Structures are given as structure tokens and as C-alpha cells.
């Protein structure tokens, strides 16, 4: 009674047919065809070159006062004129951008890291970890971002370190929410069950298997978050809570120029415009990245 089919031995004719499938080349991601992304990259690239190379584009010391040449208008010597202490506005603009961008780019990293870790824990483990972390998020979200950051820096005292601490304490909540949501979806995927079935620990599953699948949304958000951080830093500088005075900073430049608004409007307007252009550039990059990285987009 040979109803039960036999398993032919290897080597028997036709026993192991192997389908050969050529690996397709990875689809080229044509980032350069995205107009938003491209213009954002161009704007930010120009600003970064000007800011990082500040000494190359100006022969003045940003803090050097010249009381014989105060409040000058634009000229060949002073491209954008001078302020009430005779400091070159163009030079201070470059150095101010450099300082604020540096702080903004560093400041975005801490909330990104903290929010990603806490959001993963909440999403992956659920139960009490989720409850505790997400109630904490609710508390922070109840306050407006700028109000809370300014209040925290006010309490901690002015300076760069306080800015980092304040932005981290307030900014992590958005990342935690994004990552938690992504993890909640991703952890139901079979590959997580497969990883658990392979005896991998929770830390490894979160770090190696889930993180690459969920981090994209956080990266996209971080681009718009940099804009927010930049504005917070400028605002703090405006209130005198940023980097201490002699150092150039867009916020303190806006504040200093305020007294001369009716006669020398460029002292306030130029750093203000610089903030707008940086914000525009970073937002364009964020939108472009979102279009590029979000699944389901052509």
C-alpha cells in the first residue's frame, strides 16, 4: 500500500530543483528630483558654509568694538553696517548663526535619544512602563513648548548647558509619542515573534530589529524639531537667557537692535530674516525627507 509518497534521495533526477532569482539592484532613491528637499539642502548648505567658515568671509572680530564707527549704514567696509558699539553686523551675523546652529544641532540630539529610548520601552513592554511614561508625556505636553523651555532655563540660569537640559526635558515627549506608536505597530509583526522564538533578548529585539524599522519617523520629525529648537535658542537669547553677552547670538542681536528700530531697522531685521531663512531651509529638508522616506510614496 504505497499511498504515502516517498521522499526521493538527493541526487535523484529532479529531486532538488533550485530556482535562481537574480537580485534586483536596490532601487535608486532619487533624492535630487525632490524640489523641496533640493532647495532646502541648497539653503542650509549655503548657510552652513557661511557659518562654519565665518572667519573666511569677514576680516573683523565679531566682538571688537569701535566707538568711532557706531551705527553706520551698509558700505564697502561694513557690508551690513555696524551696531551701537561699532561691531560689524555682517560678522556678528555669521558668528551668531554659527553659535545658534551649533547649539541647535547639539540640542536636537538629546531629546531624540531620550524620547526614542523611553518611547521604545513604553511601546514594547506596555503595561505599567507604558502608563508611567505616557502620563509623564501628558504632563509635559500640557505646557506650551516655549513657555516651559524659557521657564526651565530661567530656573537653571542662563547658559548653553541650561539650554540643553531644558530642551531635552521638554522636547523628548514628541519623539516618545512617535516611537511608541511605531513600535506598537511594528511589534505585532511576525519578524518580532520570529526573533523572540530565536531566543533573542528584549534589548536586542528593540535595538537591532525594531529600531531600524521605526526610526525613520523620528528622523523626519527631528528636522522640524531643529527649527523649533533654533527658535527657542533665539528666543532665549532675546530674553538674555542664552549664551552670555559678548558672544554673538541672533537673539541678543535682535534685542540690542530693538532700541534703534526707528532709525536703524536693519540691526533687528537682518538677524530676524536669518532665523526665517534657516527655519525655511530646515523645514524644506524635513518635508522633502518625509516625502522620500514615508512608505507608499512614489
Amino acid at each position: 500500500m504505497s499511498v504515502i509518497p516517498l521522499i526521493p534521495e538527493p541526487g535523484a533526477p529532479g529531486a532538488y530543483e533550485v530556482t535562481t532569482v537574480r537580485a534586483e539592484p536596490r532601487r535608486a532613491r532619487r533624492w535630487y528630483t525632490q524640489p523641496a528637499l533640493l532647495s532646502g539642502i541648497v539653503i542650509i548648505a549655503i548657510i552652513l558654509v557661511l557659518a562654519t567658515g565665518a572667519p573666511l568671509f569677514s576680516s573683523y572680530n565679531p566682538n571688537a568694538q569701535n566707538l568711532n564707527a557706531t551705527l553706520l549704514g551698509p558700505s564697502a567696509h561694513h557690508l551690513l553696517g555696524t551696531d551701537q558699539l561699532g561691531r560689524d553686523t555682517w560678522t556678528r551675523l555669521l558668528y551668531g548663526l554659527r553659535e545658534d546652529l551649533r547649539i541647535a544641532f547639539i540640542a536636537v540630539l538629546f531629546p531624540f535619544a531620550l524620547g526614542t529610548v523611553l518611547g521604545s520601552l513604553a511601546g514594547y513592554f506596555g503595561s505599567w512602563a507604558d502608563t508611567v511614561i505616557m502620563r509623564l508625556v501628558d504632563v509635559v505636553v500640557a505646557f506650551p513648548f516655549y513657555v516651559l523651555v524659557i521657564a526651565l532655563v530661567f530656573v537653571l540660569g542662563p547658559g548653553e548647558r541650561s539650554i540643553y537640559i531644558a530642551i531635552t526635558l521638554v522636547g523628548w515627549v514628541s519623539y516618545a509619542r512617535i516611537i511608541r506608536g511605531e513600535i506598537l505597530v511594528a511589534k505585532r509583526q511576525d519578524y518580532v515573534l520570529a526573533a523572540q522564538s530565536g531566543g533573542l533578548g528584549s534589548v536586542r529585539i528593540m535595538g537591532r530589529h525594531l529600531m531600524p524599522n521605526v526610526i525613520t519617523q523620528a528622523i523626519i520629525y527631528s528636522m522640524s524639531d531643529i527649527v523649533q529648537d533654533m527658535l527657542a535658542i533665539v528666543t532665549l537669547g532675546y530674553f538674555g537667557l542664552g549664551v552670555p553677552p559678548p558672544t554673538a547670538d541672533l537673539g541678543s542681536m535682535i534685542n540690542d537692535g530693538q532700541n534703534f528700530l526707528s532709525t536703524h531697522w536693519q540691526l533687528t531685521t537682518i538677524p530676524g530674516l536669518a532665523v526665517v531663512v534657516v527655519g525655511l531651509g530646515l523645514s524644506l529638508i524635513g518635508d522633502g525627507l518625509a516625502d522620500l522616506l514615508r512608505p507608499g510614496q512614489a
Partner: protein
Amino acid sequence: MTAAEGPVPAGPGPAGPAAAGPGPAGPVLDVRDLHVRIASRMGTVRAVDGVSFDVAAGEALGLVGESGSGKSMTLRAVLGVLPAEARVTAGEILLDGVNLVTRTQSELNRIRGPKLAMIFQEPMSALNPVMRVGRQIAEGPQVHLGFSRARAAERALELMRRVGIPDPERRFRAYPHEFSGGMRQRVMIAIALSCDPEIILCDEPTTALDVTIQDQILRLLARLCRESGVSLVFVTHDLPVVAQICQRVAVMYGGQLVERGAVGDVLLDPRHPYTRGLVRSAPDFDYVRDSLVPIPGAPPSLITPPPGCRFHPRCEFAEEDCRVSETPLRMLPGGRATACLHWERCLEAAAADRAQA
């Protein structure tokens, strides 16, 4: 690719069990009276209700039943990866005599992989889409066997060759979406074999593949298990697949085992009306050529299962006693067991089926 395997002794005969079983006498996996309950809004689901089976070294056991009969829950209970709402409420799962039910997750993590492995139904979703295939195979040896990154990669390449993935050096760096369905399932098999487990649990590993690929994968699995003495628990609802790959079969219905025995015996001489129904509704057997007979009715609710035998509402042999008395598995001669109170009548009917064909 077959040349890499070295000499394989002349094939074991059709009666697989004679060739299987080079290992020690005791079973590798021994599941005793397993109960799994799932809390749901509608009530408690008795997903697995007193299931017992064992698997010897090198043996392949088929676990057969329709959707929702508790097959997959049984496998997930063995692995300790039940969904959050599900609990093992009673019973033992002994792997080499060690009870897995009482282990913590971190203790289980030292067992899953090196001793127990799992192959999933849908290889596309069970592979991480953003990890290179080779690294996914190499991960187990790195974590469990303490291999260095380079040595684990070597091991992954060797496994890829063993499961018949052409050009492994190049495919190592590919992502799952660059593979065909059959190749992905080969990758899953390589992952399952990566830490030399004693037993591999397969959850319908060929259901998502088309028939020609299905056959390749089944043969590959059977050959690899024969070569390395790995035991298999093979969950499926596909009887021909069970006949092809397994030595013994256990039939599940409504969260319980209803019949158990050697594959040929059970499929040819079913001693439970549900098994007979399964055989009659499957197209591949000699004696059901022109008429496939469906099983009337629907699977039982596992929240409020019918009293007595769970199959009685759908059973043509049901008597009054089937509606009242519990029907545990009873041993029959020849290593078989059935839960049916009137199995002799089922046997007669099955004989009549055959005579008719």
C-alpha cells in the same frame, strides 16, 4: 548543490520509523496535559484543552486540524511566545526532561535557538525587512554560540549553501524583499538550523508557497532533519504534506487531541469521525477520487464548547453518551489513541469508503 552533503546512505525505506530514532530512548519533547486559556472580551477561550503528545529524537510529528483548533497556540505555548492575553493554565512541556512552563523568559532565551527553533508560515513577514539576510542567519550563532561576527558570517554562508541558496556570498548582503518566496523559506530554515536545535517547530511552513516550491521545501526539510537527527513538529491542515514528511500524526479538534498514531495507520484507518472527515475532504488520497465530502457544520466555540465530545454536533455516529461524557484519549493497540467512544463504527465506515472507491 547536493554534492556538498557528502555521501548519504541508501535511502530509508517507506516505513520511516525504522530509520528514524538513532537518539536515546526518551522523547525529546514531551507535552503533557497542556491547557492554554485566552482572556477575551467574550469570555475565556479554551484554546488548548488537555493536549498531550511526545516527539522522539529524529522523529517528525504532524499536528493536524482545521483553523482555530489550537495547533498554533500549542506551538506558541511550547516556545513560550504566547500572546499577552494567553496563559498556560495547566500541564507540562518537557524538553529533555526540563519543564519549560515554569521557566522565566530569560531562561527560555537560552533554550530557544540552541534547542528549540521555529519556522513560520509567511517567510516574508517573519524576516526583518531592513536587515540583511546573512546577518539574520548569523545572529543566532552570535548570540547563542558566542561566535564572533566573522565566524557567524562563515556559519551563515555554510547554512545558506546547505539549504540550497545559490551564490550565497552575494545573497548574504541581500534584503528579504530581493528573494522569492521559496528562497525566503530556505532562509527561514537556515535560521532555524543555525544553532543546531534538537527540535524544530514548523507552523504551516509551506502554506504560503505555491505547490512546486512547496515540494522542494518539504524535501529539503525532510533531508536536513534526517541528516542532522533534528526532530520536527509539523503543524498543517494539509494531509498530503503530513503523509510526505511525518512518521506520526496527532489530530486536533476544538483544542483537544482526538486521534494519534502512525501516519499511514491514521490516514488509512481513521478511528475518529473527525479524522475520517478530514481524509474524505482531502483530494490526494487514492480512495477518494471523485467525491470530496465536506464535514458538515462549523468548528465549535472554544468559549462555550459543547458538552461531552466536542465533535458530536457534527458527527454522524453521535449517540446519547457522546453528548454527556467527557472523551479523553484512550490507548488502542499499535501505538494508537482515539477520543471517540464509538471508534469501531468509524473504522467500519472508513473501510466502506475505501471499498466504494
